[in-house]
């Protein structure tokens, strides 16, 4: 898709989603869940910048999500700054925290890097659990209901987060940095020989990814109005981000967006309507997608597109 077509489609989708709750009879529950899903889409896209574009599969992104959430919550509780500023500062703290562990560990490749990120995620969770003065320990932190955006308003903030994440995804993929990341993904040493600085490029991407995931953590803190380390830093959260990217299409610009829809909305639907069967149904759905479509939903859409519109052959 050309740049102009992409940007037009993006602007149209953003405008449609912006207006939709005001003109369509969407219930409060659906409205809120969609808002939360926007946030997860943004977080999954951010994970994809590192996991998909660079091929460095991180099992530790919950650490940045948690750091962003707790820093934002502490700022909201103690400083009186607007929540949006708190989210941003939480995101920056998470990005810097990502650099702190990422700069040395990104020299590792493949499974070695992934194992290191598991250690980072679990260590951060334990430190946060015992750092009661900052995180409240297992008791967590409660945010005041007053001064926080309502769940109704968070729909639009979630949409803005998603919009920002899509633009960065698209920009990264098409930029010089994106080409460098592709080169690093294919062969890090060859990329270095061609003048790409793998350390710098990976640091930049991890910082961007950590910052965006951290901002999402701040959003989540406002949405829940109560956070605790077991939830924010849980290994399941990191796995969730990976699954969203895998389901939607790892390494693609928009794949994680479709993956988040399956991961959050279908899960919520199954849980609410088939609570005794949801784990089985959900597991079967994931197995089917991963087994039959390695490029996830993006691959499926591409296949259907090819079937519907056969490639015109030069005559």
């Amino acid at each position, binding site marked *: 898709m050309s740049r102009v077509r992409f940007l037009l489609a993006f602007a149209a989708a953003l405008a449609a989603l912006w207006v939709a709750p005001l003109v369509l009879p969407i*219930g409060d529950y659906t409205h809120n869940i969609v808002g939360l899903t926007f946030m997860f889409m943004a977080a999954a896209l951010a994970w994809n910048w590192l996991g998909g574009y660079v091929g460095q599969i991180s099992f530790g992104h919950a650490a940045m999500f948690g750091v962003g959430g707790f820093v934002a919550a502490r700022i909201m509780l103690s400083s009186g700054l607007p929540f949006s500023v708190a989210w941003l500062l939480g995101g920056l703290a998470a990005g810097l925290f990502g650099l702190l562990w990422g700069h040395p560990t990104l020299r590792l490749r493949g499974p070695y890097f992934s194992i290191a990120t598991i250690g980072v995620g679990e260590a951060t969770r334990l430190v946060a659990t*015992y750092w009661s003065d900052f995180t409240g320990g297992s*008791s967590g932190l409660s945010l005041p209901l007053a001064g926080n955006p309502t769940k109704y308003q968070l729909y*639009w903030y979630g949409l803005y987060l998603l919009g920002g994440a899509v*633009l960065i995804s698209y920009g990264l993929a098409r*930029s010089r940095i994106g080409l460098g990341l592709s080169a690093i993904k294919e062969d890090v040493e060859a990329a270095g020989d061609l003048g790409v600085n793998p350390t710098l490029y990976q640091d930049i991407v991890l910082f961007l990814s950590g910052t965006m995931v951290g901002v999402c953590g701040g959003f989540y803190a406002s949405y829940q*109005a109560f956070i605790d380390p077991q939830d924010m830093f849980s290994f399941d959260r990191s796995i969730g981000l990976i699954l969203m990217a895998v389901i939607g299409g790892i390494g693609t610009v928009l794949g994680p967006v479709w993956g988040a829809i399956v991961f959050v909305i279908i899960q919520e639907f199954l849980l609410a309507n088939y609570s005794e069967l949801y784990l089985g149904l959900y597991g079967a759905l994931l197995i089917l997608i991963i087994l039959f479509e390695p490029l996830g939903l993006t691959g499926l859409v591409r296949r259907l597109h090819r079937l519907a519109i056969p490639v015109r052959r030069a005559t």
Partner: protein
Amino acid sequence: MNRSTVFVGVTVLLLTGCVPSKDTDDDSANTAIPDKIVIGSTLPLTGTESKTGGRFKQGYELAVEVENADGGIDLGGKKVPVQLNLLDDTTDQAKAVNLAQRLITQDKVNFFLGTYSTAVVEAQSTVAEQNQIPYVNGGGAATSIYAKGFKWVFGTLAPVANLANTEMQWIDQQQAAGALPKPARVAIVWENTSHGKDFRKGVQDFTAAHSSGYQVVTDESFALDGKDFSAILSKVRGAKADLLMIDAHLPDFITMQRQYLSSAMCTKVLTYGARGTESDARTALGAEGVNYILSAVWWNKQLGNAGLNKEFVDKFKAKYGTDPEWYQALGYEAARSLFTAIAQAGTVDKEQVRAKLSALTMDSILPGGKLSYPADKGGQADYPFVVQQNLPDGTSPIIYPADVANGKGVAPNPACKG
């Protein structure tokens, strides 16, 4: 990125200042008599707290069945049946919040019965407060839940600090009788949650008030859902504690007690707070593995063989074929108190039912015989605990307070050598 990308990005940023808002839906003033009263609820039916969640479900469902047996709740002379809309929150805070949101805003339930375990109740109760719907829970004991100034949240579990204090009162009696050393060396081991902090405070307050009788030699916390407690137990062993005062949820209790037994530890008094009498613990640890464990609970079936208690136990046994534990009793009482408040209000109007819950004083199966949600406690019930001890004959009699005791406790633990 080229200029058009930057342009769209700047547009998005500008838009961020523009977010529609909405007036709160005011559907609380609903005085019409409905065909049925729908109670929303979530419980952890899968996940780490699934066993306990299943027990609360039994309590909720029994209360609904009993209420519907004679037609339902009396609203202005008309009997209206109760329907329970119960979903599985999988012991997950986010799911508990989202499902509560769904039940309240989409399914339009009239009232809400809360979930189990402090952290999940703490997260979910904010939804009830935001949506201004009466929320009664039997699964959140930590005082932090009720210290936020929430008006719509009510808790049936008395504070955990009371639990620790009641256990210490029994221990103090044994010490006065010469059965335990003076001063006794106390190890406090608490889960790092609001629940655990309340327990620790209860022990600390008591030992501080009786400083000549007790010396705290270990004060350690652990994270919920732990797998290895050997380091903490080693510290307790090294400190030569006489009294090991632990607060833990059921999964951690079973894991920790297994490690306590396998390391051949033996303290003169051992408690895990409210845990110890559960059938799951006997199954997992064996009958000998739970001998002489002291516990203080919010309810016990031995509290009385008459009146409301007998009625509850008989109905429970008839429905489920087994004896109820405190979990089911607390679920049952949480639901019953909500039904009582609805009947007193004579309407499903949320504000009127909330006011009735605030002013409620009803006969109860709980210790003390009365249940209320005092405003000065933030809506948390406040009543005495009963102390039990597991004995080698497989019984767990109530040993304290004396007015309800039906057995005699043993201290020090006779299994300890030397």
